[in-house]
């Protein structure tokens, strides 16, 4: 299975190359791979329908993450759809995209998407599944934005990515929680311990996170709006990603996890409500669309809602219905999209109001659309019929609230019937119109649509095949053996049959009266536009403004404000620490310790403090520099008094040099002006005064503690015998801690380079070769 996924990725990279050299055949060549995978899957079907095929690969980026693949009934069904529709789409795209610039990239992205999607449905490890899940979002993003020079495409791509990406992150959190509770990310193992998961305190959060992920991906309310937007992509993309496969990922996930998490009342409530709302909303919105693709997209939203409802219901019958509908929908919706694309290609428009009587011009497309439309409407002999029968049966045998549920499903299905008529009767029947730029479509454009249309009929006529395939999928969802009994034509009149008939009748009636309905439809459409989609737009547009405002508050360009933040944070943290964790008390014997102060020392202290005051009050540069010098020399004298002659010497010489530099460098600057208002000065004084007090306190506390310095004793003893020097400080500097000194002179060297470059290298000044030597 890995080989299939990898092969598709590899071919994806090769596709642009193939497209460059064989622009005419590239679609067909690319289609060979999914076709091959399709055949291989059929080959594996017997095993898959039985015990399932498991593959483990020794690749584990993190503990607990593994590349495990499992082919069972559900993944087989999905994989067949993915590879089958994939082959047709690539074949179709070969004709659809012919002659367009950078078509190679489209094949590459489609193949990469297919690989990701296959990985998604085959993976049996939640994290591996998630990896593929996100890859489908990314490829979808790139495909939606295919016409990247158009603003509309970019906006739609962004919308799709942020909605599905955000949902994806929620899903990830859910997966991590599942892993923490269940102790594993292997889906098979999780399915075996549903009890642990469902009894956990985080069951509800997990469910909600899962809901966010699945609902955003499968375009459920209130995240449905990205899908119609995604219709700006080329039609092969819409047909493949946004109707047949990717949007089913959320549904697939629910199906996959329903053995582990499903069956609770929370599960049913959450997903049935979501599904039903989406079903009705999507159906309603599909009625008023004039753009074929948008109409199909809303209808897809509605279908996805139906699937979610069924999975939420979770009974045996409901899972059977879901499996059947999944299959039927992929076929008829894929076909209808491709028909829409062919019409667009031939006539240059997708507007339903401008299309009529195409049957004569596009007979083969009409046939494909007819088959698909009949299946969609749920007429007997076609796959869609069986699915609808099961949907109603599941509703009728659901237990509480039967009538409400049945009624809502009926309403949803009526909308499908209307859409089916729009896609067949409305466009193909009647007197034909003439189009200026009409050209007959190439063979792939109708053939690729006819195949799934015909398959819908074939599956309807071969109930055993359909039952086996869907039954195996339903078994994987339901978690217990399931056998579906299907029939070509119903043998007796059942309530389900009556409901089906009612659906179709209502659909026809509604289609005929659609003109009278329009004001109603418009009203609801406005609401939907202002709702979630509007909120999303406001968020996306408002966020940068909000960010700029917040950032401008902090990053305001004023250095003093930055310093204030830092000093404030430091004091705050210290304050919190002392308040909450017990601070050090003031040492008790301060007066005793103060009494050892000698007279000359007192004078020195006063001089330093006076110098300091003078620094702060200075209003000419000279005063400032001289006062700084006083403080510096005062410090040097402290060093002399307390046995540090080396320090004093260094401090003196540095002080002298510093003053010279100060004068040399700064004499051109203006005098020191006072710029801050009184209030700022007061605030700063209090804050810095506090900082100083903290430092004083720290010194007092620490010097009050006993200190045994092993270093002092050792250095004093080792200096002469081992270091051959009498000046311990110097021996430390050049020998014991010589690497510090090495670093120190390196700092000096770099400073020299920096200063030199600052002074000599200036923008706009030409530096003559050889003249810049120091």
């Amino acid at each position, binding site marked *: 299975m890995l080989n299939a996924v990898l092969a598709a990725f590899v071919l994806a990279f090769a596709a642009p190359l193939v497209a460059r050299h064989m622009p005419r055949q590239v679609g067909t060549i690319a289609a060979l791979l999914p076709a091959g995978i399709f055949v291989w899957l059929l080959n594996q079907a017997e095993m898959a329908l039985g015990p399932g095929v498991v593959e483990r690969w020794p690749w584990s980026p993190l503990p607990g993450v593994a590349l495990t693949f499992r082919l069972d009934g559900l993944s087989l069904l999905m994989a067949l759809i993915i590879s089958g529709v994939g082959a047709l789409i690539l074949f179709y795209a070969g004709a659809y995209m012919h002659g367009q610039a950078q078509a190679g990239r489209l094949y590459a992205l489609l193949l990469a998407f297919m690989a990701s999607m296959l990985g998604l449905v085959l993976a049996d490890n939640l994290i591996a599944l998630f990896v593929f899940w996100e890859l489908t979002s990314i490829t979808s993003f790139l495909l939606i934005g295919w016409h990247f020079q158009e603003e509309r495409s970019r906006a739609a791509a962004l919308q799709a990515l942020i909605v599905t990406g955000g949902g994806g992150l929620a899903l990830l959190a859910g997966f991590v929680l599942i892993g923490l509770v269940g102790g594993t990310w292997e889906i098979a193992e999780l399915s075996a311990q549903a009890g642990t998961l469902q009894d956990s305190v985080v069951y509800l959060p997990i469910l909600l996170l899962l809901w966010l992920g699945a609902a955003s991906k499968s375009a459920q309310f209130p995240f449905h709006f990205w899908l119609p937007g995604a219709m700006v992509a080329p039609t092969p993309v819409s047909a493949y990603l946004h109707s047949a496969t990717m949007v089913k990922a959320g549904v697939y996930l629910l199906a996959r996890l329903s053995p582990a998490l499903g069956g609770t009342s929370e599960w049913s409530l959450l997903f049935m409500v979501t599904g039903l709302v989406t079903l009705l909303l999507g159906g309603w919105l599909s009625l008023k669309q004039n753009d074929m693709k948008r109409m199909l997209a809303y209808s897809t939203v509605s279908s996805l809602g139906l699937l979610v409802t069924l999975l939420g219901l979770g009974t045996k019958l409901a899972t059977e219905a879901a499996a059947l509908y999944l299959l039927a929908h992929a076929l008829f919706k894929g076909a209808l999209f491709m028909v829409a694309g062919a019409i667009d290609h031939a006539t240059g428009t997708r507007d339903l109001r401008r299309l009529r009587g195409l049957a004569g011009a596009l007979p083969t497309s009409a046939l494909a659309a007819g088959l698909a439309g009949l299946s969609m409407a749920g007429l007997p002999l076609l796959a869609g019929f069986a699915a609808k029968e099961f949907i109603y049966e599941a509703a009728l045998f659901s237990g509480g609230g039967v009538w409400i549920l049945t009624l809502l499903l009926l309403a949803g299905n009526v909308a499908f019937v209307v859409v089916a008529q729009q896609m067949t009767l409305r466009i193909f029947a009647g007197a034909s119109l003439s189009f200026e730029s009409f050209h007959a479509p190439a063979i792939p454009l109708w053939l690729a649509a006819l195949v799934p249309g015909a398959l819908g009929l074939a599956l309807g006529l071969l109930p055993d095949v359909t039952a086996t395939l869907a039954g195996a999928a339903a078994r994987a969802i339901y978690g217990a053996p399931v056998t579906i009994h299907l029939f070509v034509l119903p043998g007796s009149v059942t309530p389900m049959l009556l409901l089906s008939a009612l659906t179709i009748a209502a659909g026809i009636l509604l289609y005929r009266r659609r003109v009278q309905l329009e004001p109603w439809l418009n009203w609801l459409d406005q609401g939907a536009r202002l709702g979630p989609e509007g909120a999303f737009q406001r968020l996306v547009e408002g966020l940068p*403004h909000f960010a*700029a405002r917040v950032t*401008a508050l902090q990053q*305001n*360009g*004023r250095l*003093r404000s930055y*310093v204030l933040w830092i000093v404030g944070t430091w004091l705050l943290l210290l304050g919190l620490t002392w308040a909450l964790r017990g601070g050090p008390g003031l040492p008790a014997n*301060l007066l005793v*310790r103060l009494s050892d*102060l000698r007279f000359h*020392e007192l004078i020195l*202290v006063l001089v330093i403090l006076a110098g*300091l005051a003078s*620094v702060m009050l200075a209003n000419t540069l000279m005063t*400032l520099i001289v006062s700084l010098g006083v*403080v510096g020399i005062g410090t040097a004298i*402290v060093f002399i008094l307390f*046995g540090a*002659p*080396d*320090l004093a010497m*260094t401090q003196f010489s*540095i002080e002298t040099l*510093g003053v010279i*530099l100060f004068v040399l*460098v*700064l004499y*051109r*600057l203006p005098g020191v*002006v006072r710029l801050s208002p009184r209030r700022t000065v007061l605030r700063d004084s209090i804050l*810095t005064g506090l*900082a*100083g007090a*903290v*430092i*004083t*306190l720290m*010194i*007092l506390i*620490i*010097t009050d503690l006993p*200190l045994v310095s092993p*270093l002092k004793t050792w*250095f*004093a*003893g080792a200096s*002469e*015998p081992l270091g051959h020097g009498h000046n311990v*400080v110097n021996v430390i*500097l050049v020998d014991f801690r010589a690497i510090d000194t090495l*670093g*120190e002179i390196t*700092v000096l060297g*770099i*400073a020299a380079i*920096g*200063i030199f470059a*600052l*002074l000599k290298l200036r923008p706009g000044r030409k530096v003559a070769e050889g003249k810049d030597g120091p």
Partner: protein
Amino acid sequence: MEVALAIVIGALYAAGLYMMLRRSMVKLIAGLVLLGYASNLLIFVVSRLTRARPPLVPEGAQGIAEPFADPVPQALILTAIVIGFGLQAFALVLVRRAYQAVNNDDLDQVTASDRPDLQQ
């Protein structure tokens, strides 16, 4: 003396930070210099003070008799002073060049490089 010096050091820190909070570039440098003095003195004082007994081994002796000043902080401070000097020299030249570029000593005018663009 420790207590008195502790107060001095506290005052040095306070003054250093205060000067850094001003708008003038020259005062900024003065603040940095003061902070340098302050941290050096702090290291000196918290390592305990010993009056007038430099850590020099007398001729012919193998070690020094207690009490004597701790040589370790002295070595550290020496390194720190020299590094501080290098930084101070760089700072001076930088400020001068910045002054030339902006043509103003007021740090509040030095904001071209980091405010977000609110028109966006």
